[in-house]
């Protein structure tokens, strides 16, 4: 694939992204023409089952952080595995062993997290 063909296809992608945003804007603009606006006292109150929203708003649980962290690590791993997957044949046994070690080391991390109990809710 030559660079010019390549850039054309990405131009298409870029135009698509633009068109997606355009459609979003267009539809909302259309809706704006038609829809009513009727301010009512409670309409802009945050919904909380019909009660007054009380107290501080929100924080997350540290558990999610650990999941996200595990995800980042394995995502990075996946990105390294992809190129290898393209060249399994030419890299042969050598590549396989390399990637095997790579995967096993990261799997150790998962095992560690598992053993440490961070995959449970407590």
């Amino acid at each position: 694939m030559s660079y010019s063909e390549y850039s054309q296809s990405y131009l298409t992608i870029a135009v698509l992204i633009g068109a997606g945003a355009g459609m979003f804007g267009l539809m909302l603009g259309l809706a704006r023409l038609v829809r009513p606006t009727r301010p009512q006292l409670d309409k802009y109150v945050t919904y909380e089952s019909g009660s007054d929203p009380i107290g501080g708003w929100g924080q997350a649980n540290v558990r999610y952080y650990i999941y996200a962290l595990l995800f980042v690590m394995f995502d990075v791993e996946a990105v390294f595995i992809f190129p290898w997957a393209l060249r399994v044949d030419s890299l042969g046994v050598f590549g396989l062993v390399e990637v095997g070690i790579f995967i096993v080391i990261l799997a150790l991390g998962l095992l560690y997290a598992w053993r440490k109990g961070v995959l449970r809710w407590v």
Partner: protein
Amino acid sequence: MTAAASTLALEIPWGVLLGAKVMIILTLLPLTALILGYVFLMKMMAHMQSRLGPMDPGGFHGWFQLIGDGIKFIQKEDVMPADADRRVFALAPMIILISTFVVYAVIPAGPRLVVEDLEVGIFFALAVSSLSVIGVLMAGWASSNKFALLGALRAAGQLIAYELPLVLAVVGVIMQAGTMSLQGIVGAQANGEIFGWGAVGNPFVLTQAVGFVLFLAAAQAELTQTPFDMPVAESELVAGYQVEYTGFRWLFFQMSEYATAFALAGIAATLFLGGWYVPGVEGTAADVLGPLVLFAKIMAISFVIFWVRFTYPRFREDQLQAMAWKYLIPLSLLNILVTGILKVVF
């Protein structure tokens, strides 16, 4: 597409072609959402529950139902909570929509019918669809609503946890096909053979059955469909991160959900079921039949997705995460290693 034009012996200028492509994708997005929503959500669910589903709207079996919903949502007021972060709140659905709809660009529907056959096609699709997490977090945070925040965190936690099996299940296919281009993967399946018997090609569902199951399970979770619908669990979080969204903005969430279902089913069909390929059809005939074949395969896969959705109760958040981390991800890593070993040995 380019070559489809040349078979018609027409030289279509690139700009016109681009416009046509964009228009096709733009119409496909709501159209697929409508089809999936109507066929599965409205009708199939109703019949599974010994009901009829919408019958009145439009006269014939309620075909107008979802179109009517769309037109109604245009007329709905756009409400933003006073506490909300207005810009972020407004933009979140757009991010989710775009992350879905760019994926359509790389799914081939015939030997020459593809918007852009990127060299890194499947990787591109995975990367772009991972952006929806940002949109979900934006929506949940900007709503200033506790249900929304809890829902967004659950959704994000779930989307990322199941992103991995999704990505890793694809690796096996790439290993077998030796390319990341979706067109190339279809080609590899069309020309492949199993143990010297190549009559139906080599749909990777046969050799990558584990990968296929992993992919479907992960897709189910990515779509936040039951049993993985914790983020938008009605009976708990009301509507999760979408709770404060009204009117058209909310419709965009729904549309993206069904469009994503369609796109993921399309990718699954392409990766594992041979995409547009059907044995015996080649050349221009494949360009005509290809979209229909692909559509049939997509509907078959979507049927499974929605079947599961209407049958199962939902997991609890920790069970859901445990399933991803303790079963799906180790299994997909194992799948990669085994595929690699087999590939290198044979």
